[in-house]
């Protein structure tokens, strides 16, 4: 008998050795008699077994017809005449590469630059391209054409995601095009309702032909001159200087020279993203130039010269993920004030002073941790508030809690980097009081006194006392002496803000519960009370603290508060960004808003701010009408707060404008939900009158008002799927008011009879649970009913996991990012299958995932993942 597996042939003696070894592993145990006995046992116990089953492709799956795997079925989709018809909704896996790029395989040599798809879309639908590569070295773009092949829009950024939204229903062509390198990808239509599109699109509002760029002085020292610097990248200089942002232009330069200078010649001329409209073409070229410049070592950053709307929308890269700022009407507030002249004391673990997104935002602070065993920096109080890590993880990373809080207060903003801060033109005073044990009242009191400009143990006073102090800290336990300290610092004009606590209880936490301190509870993206937040009579106001158990906006990330963060400890600290949740995250939103108010009106006293809060005019009332123990006066409204602050002063009053605020901004009913709610409020001032909303569903959507005479209140949205054919349905609810209109996108899916999915060539891998290595593998066969079947034989007794996936890039591993993947029983919980006999019931599902793993900033390679499939094949087979 021969044992054949993985292209390796073993004779019986090898098999015997193998079985003996496995039997000794504890994970095997197949044992039994060898089938080559002397014949005394007529029915020898089997020592190997056969596993089989069926694999369902996830509903709505489809696959690119010309992936790099030479074993996969091949149908070219390289031009408009070959456009591959795909269903809607769809999750499609594919692969493209430039000639010579990527692993060997069907398209490696000649390249597969474009994949064309034909699809029927409905108005409002978003097409999203998730790129398995880094999006820069392996850069894919997305194009949208009308049915005749005229370019309508393109998304051509350098991230891992491109997205486009269609305005009108109809037949469209989609193109996935590789700008550089090679990559797997997942294209989705109608699967999610993204609250904000991502990518750098042709339809974005920017000046055609203009690029804002800054060069890297370490690689390109200043002195060359503005014009020469521009010429070096094939552009003309319009404005700026070498040591700051320059405004460069494509006007008046030969396009060929620009392409040559930026090594764009082949990618630009190969591209099907072309148009006869000269303005659109200039915008396309602008995007290409931006991408090419961002790839150069001598360029720090380049971006289109975006045209901004009246509301200040920062250009910070991660700002679109900071859902917690629009929740406060902060962009409207920024049109009035950005915090200039104010100082916010962050009384916390210290701040990572070297964080790139806090540069220029800090004033001198102090380290008030008096107990060296708590301080973790080798001494007691000192003048260095840098966060050395609080030893929150022994031998691991510090919490960098204060760095996160500081970023929310005033991270550097509109600098194209990282995140935005609430009062970004204010300054942060880092005061360190929390060490590895926590913080003491005495040390916190010293920090408060320093912030207020009162004598303290440091023996020094700040050059400018703080306007507001944020304390994202607390614990039960009232102290009369600390109450006195609070009274003293408040009397100097310092506004105190603190976190209500995270015990999900009514037990008061201090300092938040002291008289004279604004206690802040937390809400999530849906403005619902956060499950961890404390509540009670001491709560004054609510602010976003996040809820990481949710992903309401469908952006693939937990709905935490995004801010500056770091990891590591000691001399090995890496700055970064992170999503955290807690009333610690809510408090700095309020502190930042207070800074905006103090900047708009420096005469405001702590009592004035208390009065404004109590009046209910600067908050959005949530929960029970009026003040309640969960939200206090309600969710802080930054716009109303700044307007109120201005109008409380002696300057020119601001006529508060009504703001039509609808929450949430989109509704996604998925395949099963039938009822969702909308809330319409006046986020500004004055009188807001909202008309009965209209909707364009054609009958499946019903809006039922539960509102007052002005149209403010709740609206119930219900859907009726009866009689509807399979597919994705979208509609728009339009709210018209005297403050303008707001549209709410609605998406709903009917999928009762969706046809079976197709994920392409599937490989089944049997993984030894003990070793984690591939034992054997096989190809699955697609049947007429759309299911895949598989069978693997000669499996020794043991414990195994079974995976099934595609290998679109033909690198020999299934389940890479962008490739279909599934596991028995499920991918989330692969079962440890104990094999002691034949099995025929090993059925499971395989499909494409759109939550592709994020890459580190420095990683240009494709993420390595997956399982060796071990199917012998001809590498480099060209079609």
């Amino acid at each position, binding site marked *: 008998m021969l044992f054949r597996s*993985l292209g*390796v042939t*073993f004779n019986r003696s090898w098999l015997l050795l*193998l079985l003996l*070894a*496995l039997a*000794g592993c*504890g*994970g*095997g145990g197949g044992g039994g008699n060898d089938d080559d006995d002397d014949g005394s046992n007529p029915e020898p116990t089997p020592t190997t077994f056969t596993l089989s089953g069926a694999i369902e492709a996830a509903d709505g799956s489809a696959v690119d017809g010309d992936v790099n795997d030479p074993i996969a079925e091949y149908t070219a989709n390289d031009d408009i005449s070959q456009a591959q018809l795909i269903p809607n909704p769809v999750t499609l896996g594919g692969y493209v590469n430039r000639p010579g790029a990527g692993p060997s395989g069907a398209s490696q040599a000649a390249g597969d630059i474009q994949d064309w798809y034909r699809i029927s879309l409905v108005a409002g639908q978003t097409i999203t391209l998730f790129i398995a590569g880094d999006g820069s070295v392996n850069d894919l773009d997305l194009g949208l054409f009308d049915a005749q092949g005229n370019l309508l829009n393109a998304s051509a950024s350098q991230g891992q995601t491109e997205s486009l939204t269609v305005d009108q229903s109809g037949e469209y062509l989609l193109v996935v095009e590789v700008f550089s390198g090679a990559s797997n990808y997942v294209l989705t239509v109608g699967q999610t309702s993204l609250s904000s599109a991502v990518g750098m699109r042709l339809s974005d509002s920017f000046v055609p032909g203009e690029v804002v760029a800054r060069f890297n002085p370490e690689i390109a020292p200043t002195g060359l001159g503005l014009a020469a610097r521009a010429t070096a990248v094939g552009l003309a200089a319009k404005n700026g200087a070498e040591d700051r942002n320059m405004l460069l232009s494509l006007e008046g330069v030969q396009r060929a020279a620009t392409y040559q200078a930026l090594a764009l010649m082949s990618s630009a001329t190969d591209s099907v993203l072309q148009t006869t409209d000269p303005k659109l073409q200039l915008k396309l070229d602008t995007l290409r130039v931006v991408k090419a410049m961002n790839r150069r070592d001598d360029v720090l950053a380049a971006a289109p010269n975006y045209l901004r709307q009246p509301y200040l929308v920062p250009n910070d890269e991660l700002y679109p993920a900071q859902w917690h700022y629009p929740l406060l009407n902060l962009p409207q507030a920024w049109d009035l004030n950005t915090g200039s002249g104010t100082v916010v004391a962050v009384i*916390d*673990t210290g701040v990572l002073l070297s964080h790139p997104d806090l540069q220029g935002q800090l004033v001198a602070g102090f380290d008030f941790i008096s107990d060296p065993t708590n301080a973790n920096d080798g001494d007691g109080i000192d003048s260095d508030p840098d966060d050395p890590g609080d030893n*929150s*993880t*022994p*031998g691991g*990373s510090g*919490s960098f809690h204060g760095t*996160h809080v500081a970023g929310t207060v005033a991270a550097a903003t509109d600098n194209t980097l990282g995140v935005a801060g609430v009062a970004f033109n204010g300054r942060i005073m880092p005061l360190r009081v*929390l060490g590895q044990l*926590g*913080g*003491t009242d005495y040390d*916190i009191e010293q920090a408060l006194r320093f912030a207020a400009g009162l004598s303290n143990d440091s023996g020094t006073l700040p050059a400018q006392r703080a306007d507001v102090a944020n304390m994202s*800290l*607390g614990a039960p336990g009232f102290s009369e002496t600390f109450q006195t300290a609070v009274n003293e610092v408040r009397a100097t004009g310092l506004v105190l803000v603190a*976190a209500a606590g*995270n*015990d999900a209880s009514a037990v008061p936490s*201090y*300092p938040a519960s002291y008289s004279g301190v604004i206690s802040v509870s937390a809400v999530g993206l849906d403005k619902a009370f956060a499950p961890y937040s404390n509540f009670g009579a001491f709560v004054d106001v609510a602010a976003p603290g996040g809820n*990481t*158990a949710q992903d309401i906006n469908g952006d693939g990330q*937990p709905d*935490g508060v995004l801010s500056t963060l770091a*990891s590591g400890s000691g001399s090995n600290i890496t700055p970064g960004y*992170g999503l*955290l*949740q*807690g009333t*610690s*995250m809510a*408090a700095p939103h309020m502190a930042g808003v207070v800074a905006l108010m103090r900047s708009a009106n420096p005469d405001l006293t702590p009592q004035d701010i208390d009065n404004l809060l109590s009046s209910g005019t600067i908050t959005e009332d949530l929960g029970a009408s009026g003040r309640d123990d969960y939200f206090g006066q309600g969710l802080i409204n930054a716009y109303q707060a700044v307007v109120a602050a201005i109008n409380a002063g002696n300057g020119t009053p601001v006529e508060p404008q009504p703001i039509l605020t609808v929450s949430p901004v989109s509704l996604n009913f998925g395949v099963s939900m039938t009822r969702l709610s909308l809330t319409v409020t006046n986020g500004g001032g004055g009188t807001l009158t909202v008309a009965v909303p209209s909707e364009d569903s054609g009958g499946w959507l019903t809006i039922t008002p539960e509102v007052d005479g002005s149209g403010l209140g709740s609206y119930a949205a219900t859907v009726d799927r009866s009689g509807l054919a399979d597919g994705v349905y979208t509609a728009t609810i339009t709210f018209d008011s005297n403050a303008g209109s707001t549209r709410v996108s609605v998406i709903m899916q009917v999928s009762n009879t969706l046809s079976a999915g197709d994920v392409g060539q599937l490989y089944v891998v049997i*993984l*030894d649970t*003990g*070793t*984690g*290595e591939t*034992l054997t593998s096989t190809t699955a066969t697609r049947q007429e009913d759309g299911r895949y079947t598989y069978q693997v034989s000669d499996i020794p007794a043991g414990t195994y996991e079974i*995976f099934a996936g595609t290998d679109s890039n033909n690198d*020999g*591993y299934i389940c890479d990012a962008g490739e279909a993947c599934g*596991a028995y029983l499920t991918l*989330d919980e692969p079962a440890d299958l104990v094999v002691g006999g034949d099995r025929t019931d090993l059925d499971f599902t395989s499909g494409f995932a759109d939550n592709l*793993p994020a890459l*580190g900033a420095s990683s240009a390679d494709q993420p*390595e993942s*997956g*399982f060796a499939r071990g199917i012998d094949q001809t590498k480099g087979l060209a079609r």
Partner: protein
Amino acid sequence: MTGRRRLWPLVLACLVGCTPSQGADPDGASGQQTTLRADVLFSDTYCGSAAVYPKVAWLGSTAALNQVFDRFDRSPGATPAVDFSRQAVLFIAMGQRPTAGYALDFANGRVQRQGETLEVRLGWREPPAGYRLAQVVTTPCLLIEIPAVSFSALRVVDQSGQVRLTGRR
């Protein structure tokens, strides 16, 4: 999943399977206590959705390790390379906690196997009373690399001898 599985010839798996650490275990069978070296692979305060609930789990494959790593809040970078033919990983989570100050302190570099039970002794650190604490929700966790020995039960014991977590392989 970000780890990479390599295709090994079956014969190599066989040879690895014959090493004492992987094979039948006379100590375990006799119930004697064996001390095994254990190294901290990773630990953090913000382990995210992977560590919302208290648990101890045995991770015997790169896929299982990747599933944990992919769910951390603060990206720890690339999944560490573990030779799962010789090693395994224990994932220990305290569960979601309301503040900073909670941590798992594994300093002794050893775990004990007695019979079919693997026991991990560690410092189960909670914030001391009387201090004000950062009001951030934390999810402390610990990944320990151990030899791939056989056992069926897991037990985590704190510094005072209290059993904090139990699990099965």
